[in-house]
């Protein structure tokens, strides 16, 4: 009996920049429907790992597997076409276009015009920003930009959503609300969240993979990770033993 392959997995993924090994033989696997947090202090290699998953970086060695299929070195648009919705750390939006046009275009690649309009309206409603539909994306406030990008990412109905630091620049209240939102998104999509905010991890309360110096330090449930002395050491800046 063979178990179905994980939705997304990396095998010994390594990314080197000259002499710096930003990601060092990382093997992580995400199951269908899972909600996973990748955390680690600044410089732990999370964002580099994220960019290897999204195709923005071509890993030096190792493999990226999508449902068991080798997709290493795919361009970002081919990764997206697999059914991955990607949210970047600094919201990437079509600044000169109305918010709704960007969300429609997100759905338009897979659906007809009428269906795209419906999906876009539904996504804006779901994120509570229907009133911003006609506003040019460039005029939104920071928190609104984050939500607009989330709407863009979920509109086409991806199987997996990857979020890079979705709470960057948010206050405590907004962070808590975003955590709730991400758990809500998880009802329909597998979600990978790259974060370094511990409060956020606590609010999400699912499996956590901790990065440190380009490697996986611990992988466990949120409450165990949060009480793990090694993780505390890493976050407080002491050398991990």
């Amino acid at each position, binding site marked *: 009996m063979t178990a179905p392959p994980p939705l997304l997995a990396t095998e010994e993924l390594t990314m080197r920049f000259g002499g710096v090994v930003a990601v060092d033989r990382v093997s992580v696997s995400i199951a269908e429907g899972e909600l996973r947090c990748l955390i680690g202090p600044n410089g732990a290699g999370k964002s580099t790992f994220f960019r290897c998953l*999204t195709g923005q970086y071509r890993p030096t060695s190792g493999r990226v597997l999508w449902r068991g299929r080798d997709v290493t070195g795919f*361009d*970002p*648009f081919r990764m*997206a*076409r697999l059914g991955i919705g*990607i949210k*970047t750390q600094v919201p*990437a*939006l*079509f*600044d*000169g*276009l*109305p918010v709704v*046009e*960007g969300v429609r*275009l*997100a759905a*338009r*690649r897979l659906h007809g015009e009428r269906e795209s309009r419906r999906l876009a309206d539904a996504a804006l409603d779901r994120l509570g920003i229907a009133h911003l539909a*006609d*506003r*040019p994306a460039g*005029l939104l406030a920071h928190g609104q930009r984050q939500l607009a990008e989330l709407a*863009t990412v979920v509109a*086409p109905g991806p199987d997996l959503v990857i979020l890079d630091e979705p709470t960057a620049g948010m206050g405590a209240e907004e962070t808590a609300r975003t955590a709730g939102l991400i758990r809500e998104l998880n009802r329909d999509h597998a979600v990978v969240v790259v974060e370094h905010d511990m409060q956020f991890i606590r609010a999400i309360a699912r499996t956590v993979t901790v990065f440190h110096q380009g490697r996986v330090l611990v992988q466990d449930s949120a409450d165990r990770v949060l009480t793990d002395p090694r993780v505390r050491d890493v976050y407080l800046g002491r050398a991990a033993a």
Partner: protein
Amino acid sequence: MTAAGRAALHIGAAAALAAAAVTVLPGALELFALINATVWAAMALLALSLAFAWGAGGILCFGQTAFFGLGGYAYAVAGINFGDGALAVPVALAVATLAAAALGWLMFYGRVGDVYMGVITLTVTLILFKFANSTAGEQWRIGAAPLGGFNGIPQTPPLNWPGEPDNALTPEQVFVFAVLCLFGCYAAVKLVLLTRFGRVAVAIKENELRAELLGYDVRAHRLGVFTIGGAMAGLAGVLFANCVFVSPTMFSLAYAGQVVIWVLVGGVGTFAGPMAACVALQALTAWAGTVPGFDPNLLLGGVLLLAVVAVPRGLLPTAQSLLVRLRPRPRRRGAEERPMAPAE
């Protein structure tokens, strides 16, 4: 108003303007002035071709004249060999389109950065300029057509009715044809922007990464936009060849620079602006050329400096913003080419 409604309105207005031009001008203008007007229409089409590549696709092509010149030369060479100008038009369009597709493929699939794209396109047009200049002498001929070096091809054949090589178009008819081409291309690019391809092209200009992360192949879309722009520039070259004749000047730095100036002054992101700026600046430099001891390029440079400093977004977008502001109850989106918010 919806995007489609706005486009219909703009195309309707352009149709009225084109109809007025073809009914009034051929009777009202003397022959020399009419030929000049045809040159301006050809140049306006060249401006439109860059306005599309740059404004809709975000591709700053500094060498739009490469395709303009190639279209003109291909028309002249094919026309001389076929003895039929009408048959030469599709050949010219094919040459310009293929050249744009090949150059675009190298740039976009080679992931060349934006700044280098400007450098590469300008370099290509200047290489063509050098090459065309060096084709003096009997050995430089394609079939029956001598390339003529510095002098170009003065015996560029005139357009004729399809299937009737001996029935050449009169200058009035060439003018009407040029206006129809200009209007047709304007309507076409407006309609392209309503398709998924056009909307994605605009989105790529706004944020390349986001478009790519949505699963759109940025390279293919940019190649499409660039090739359409090249084809239009080629058609402009055919029209130009019919009023003047083809010569290496078509590839020159002066021409390449002028196209960029027209689009900058008229407003990147609009189509009508660059076309209007093209005609206005041509009229202005033509007039300045008659002032003894004055270099019209000085005037052109002055206008560019003034535009960059005083109206950095270009004339049309600035005029649109002013209109929006002057309205008693400003709407969030007026009838602009692109949705634009008033300053809040």
